[in-house]
């Protein structure tokens, strides 16, 4: 078995205390939620925190609640709970679906919604053991200077691989962080950078304390489609979330599409709503709009050789999975 490097474990009981502990050791401390990403990455020598701050005893970070403004999801809500929660299933079906296809059942019982949103980017040349990476001369993202995805590349293109991120983007969700300077709310669509090394704009002392999903349109529909080799366990080779809002007539009054496992950040495909607006699922016009959206996504989404699987084939799968997600949402 791979060994976990030595670290100091702290178990704060409040969010404020956790933030203070983060601020005490900037860049040296990391947060432990479910641990399903942190622990393997520590074993692979990718994360080398001196201090691990467990969130297990922090009060108020779990559960889903509803108000007039919408849903508030605690980041420590497990992926299993998020995928089965009645409020999430009805108010934000794309999120429930995305949470329900992360990894496998055992990992979803431990892994959290916040952890998935804050997941490190992934790359076939990066998510490997120290020995393996050493044999390669390491890579841009960790310990080295070379990119093996784009030869000669100077920018890390490790892929955002969090299934829940595109779903949250289509829902116009936001993340609430607590830092030394207080609370900050940021739209999840604005959370990202295009740098695979660190793809999130989050301060070293910030703790994710809530995910807010605003109240959706009355005829809200959503779906998430995930490409992977196996029907369980695997990270996405491509993932896309869609939102379809239907008006009283059953015609599309709003729509959105976001995708993951392409580049360092989850990608929102712009111009989708315009194509679908006013069409009714079941009609020829809708089918044609779906096809146009699929082709638009095909143009915008260019998978790289960053995660396993043939990149060319993954690109061919973009329109297929976009169609499937749209049809599933319309059903």
């Amino acid at each position, binding site marked *: *078995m*791979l*060994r976990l490097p*030595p670290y100091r474990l702290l178990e704060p009981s409040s969010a404020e205390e956790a933030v203070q502990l983060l601020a005490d050791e900037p860049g040296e401390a990391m947060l432990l939620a479910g641990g399903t990403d942190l622990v393997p990455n520590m074993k692979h020598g990718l994360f080398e925190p001196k201090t691990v701050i467990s969130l297990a005893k922090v009060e108020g970070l779990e559960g889903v609640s509803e108000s007039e403004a919408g849903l508030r999801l605690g980041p420590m809500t497990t992926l299993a709970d998020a995928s089965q929660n009645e409020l999430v299933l009805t108010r934000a079906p794309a999120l429930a679906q995305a949470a329900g296809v992360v990894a*496998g059942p055992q990992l979803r019982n431990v892994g959290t919604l916040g952890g998935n949103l804050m997941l490190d980017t992934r790359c*076939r040349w990066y*998510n*490997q*053991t120290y*020995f*393996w990476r*050493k*044999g*390669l001369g390491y890579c841009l993202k960790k310990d080295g200077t070379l990119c093996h995805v784009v030869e000669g590349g100077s920018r890390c293109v490790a892929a955002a691989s969090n299934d829940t991120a595109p779903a949250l983007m289509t829902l116009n969700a936001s993340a609430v962080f607590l830092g030394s300077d207080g609370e900050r709310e940021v739209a999840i669509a604005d959370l990202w950078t295009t740098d695979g090394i660190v793809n999130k704009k989050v301060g070293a002392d910030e703790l994710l304390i809530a995910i807010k999903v605003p109240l959706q349109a009355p005829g809200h529909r959503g779906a998430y489609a995930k*490409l992977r*080799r*196996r*029907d*369980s*366990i*695997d*990270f996405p080779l491509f993932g896309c979330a869609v939102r379809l809002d239907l008006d009283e007539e059953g015609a599309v009054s709003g729509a959105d599409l976001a995708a993951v496992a392409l580049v360092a950040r989850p990608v929102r495909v712009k111009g989708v709503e315009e194509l679908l607006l006013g069409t009714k699922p079941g009609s020829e016009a809708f089918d044609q709009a779906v096809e146009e959206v699929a082709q638009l996504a095909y143009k915008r989404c260019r998978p790289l050789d960053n995660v*396993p*699987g*043939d990149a*060319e*084939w993954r690109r*061919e*799968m973009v329109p*297929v999975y976009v169609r499937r997600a749209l049809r599933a949402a319309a059903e």
Partner: protein
Amino acid sequence: MAARDIHGPKPPWGEHFQVIGKGHRKVDGLAKATGDAIYADDIVLPGMLHAKTLRSPHAHARIKAIRTDKALALEGVHAVLTGSDLPECYGVIPWTPDENALAVDKVRFIGDEVAAVAAVDEDTANAALELIEVDYEPLHAFLDPKEALGRGEPQIHEGRKDGNVSKHVKLDFGDVEGGFEEAEVIVEGDYSFHGTTHGAIEPHCAVAQYGADGNLTLWSSTQITHYVQREISKVLDIEPQHVRVIQPCLGGAFGGKSDPFSLEFCVSKLAMITGRPVKMLWTREEVFYAHRGRHPAQMHYRTGATRDGRLTAVDAKILLDGGAYSSFGLVTTYYSGQLLTGPYHFPAYRFDSTRVFTNTPPCGPKRGHGSVQPRFAFEIQLDELAEKLELDPIELRRRNFQGESTETINGQRITSNGFLECLDKVEAASDWKERRGKMPFGRGLGVAGSMYITGTNYPIYPNDMPQAGIQLQVDRSGLVTVFTGGNDIGQGSNSVAAYLVAEELGVEISDVRVVAADTDLCPVDLGAYSSRVTFMVGNAVIDACRKLRAQIVDTLAATWECDKKRVRLMRGMALDLEDSERAIPMREAFQLTEAACDTLGATGSYNTPTLGGDYRGGAIGASPAYSFTAHVVEVDVDCETGFIGVKKVWCAHDCGRALNPRLVAGQIEGSVYMGIAEALLEDHKVNRFGLHDGPSLLDYPMPTTLDTPEIEALIVESVDPEGPYGAKEAGEGPLHSSIPALANAVYDAVGLRLTDLPFTPAKVLRALRELESATGV
């Protein structure tokens, strides 16, 4: 009774079996389910040290210097080993010893073992590894077997005659050219099989203890205790009687634990140097480097037939990528040709098979050793032939059935052969006649057949001693203990031994204990490979039981003053068939016998008859009995994505007699699972750096339950004249034809002839598009 006596397939008592043929628990099932079972890594000894291995980051390099002083100086480090400490070469095949426990002058793949450290704990050992300095001179690395075949320099193993060729076998049987002249239809094509590995759930682990008395004890997760004992004795220069090798409970092997491995030598040597017990547990990554999995094979096949579908000749040319070491490669090369000559009659056959070395993790035996790749190519050719001849593929196979009690073109003796019944069963169960070729586009059925050995008469090192020995001890408490060298690797061989004793001596299964795979306590068995254990150990158990049974029956007949024929042992009781007053528990029967005869015990053994063709290599692949299999696979091809969905697999397997049908069905299901995994998901390969493509269970995608098709196991019992009660193997045969049956099903579904494994969706989609543009659909 002599070792070679055949006991016949009949029940030992009367018309019916009491134990055999019924579903029973495995003797170790509860212990495994509850966590009581002791695996190698569960062993903790007082003062035990932990060892780790330094591995090569180069695919091919000369070692110029190794400096270990800094590692040795680290607090908590007890010993550091390098190649010069264990210079003696070894290898499971005595003719090709080309491995060292630690690299002596060269490293031959990324992951090759270079040094080992024993320390107070694993973290300290790992830290010490970082302090070892190795100067390498990188050499040209061969990652492509074709390049290794064409280019002999630099040699991966220096001093060999033939560049980077590991083994070459070319054999001709019958009039091949005449056969092709006679042929009215010829199919010819290239087929490619990729590398796959075993993926046993338990990583390799070994623990060694060296006593002041000079005795070495090695607990190891091995499936070949006897060969490990021999190689340890040789490399460490200890007389074999002072080397005790014990296989604890094992978490799967599938052929991946049938070589002696570096860790076994290292912990032994480290225990001798430090005087403390030493354990080494490999990480999953290290298991991928140790590999010994299926050889990638590039194959060219030509098959001729008459208009009415009778085969006239088969010609094969095979290139096997052996990886960095020989392992079982000599046998693999023979098996790649020798095991194709059934269940069909070949009037003429030629194969030309070459194994080359490359700078990749070493290949070896994986479930269906050597014969899964050729079977893939040939069974697709049969499908192509059936299409050309406008024959139903099952009918074509029936027409070429070789029959039972026959001999193959390459001189292999076939005894029982239930292949026709296998075909009948899968045909009926899959509703073949109604559905094949008649389902909507995208859905299809495919068939394939195969055969496999039940052990081989080639004992790895030549000797005339039995292949399997058994010792029985009968206690006056009523307990019968079986001592067997056989390795239970999860297949249930210990359970089979218990079932056979219970049947023969009339005791309850729970009153039989099995002590297995401990070279100090158990008579030699050669190990769990080539699907030999149930057949050979089973026969040896019956042999021993018959001797004891005679003593017990004689004693009871004398005590009861009745004819011996009236004595019956069953269900824990000894009975007089004609006097219901006379019924005593077996405990009492044992005590009477012990009083009359002396302390009770018996030995039994099995050895193969002389088998095989009269030519060099004719004994390799010669088996006392062959198993036969037929698969029908149903697929649903997603033409938008290229994903092949396997809806259902029907597998009919002729296992001679199912000693425990539940275990046979388990072996069939496991084999099908593994075959489908190889066809669709798994791919053991290196990247452009020679580095393993992803040595983890995340990157090496074994199917989850959701990816596993529905499997219907259909048992065919041909009852072999020489197997224990007629049993043959069930552990490896049922894998073979699953892969070509799947390929043939894809052809039925979408008209795509897939010949290049694995069938990834990317590859399938590309091929579908090429097919569309070629046919203008």
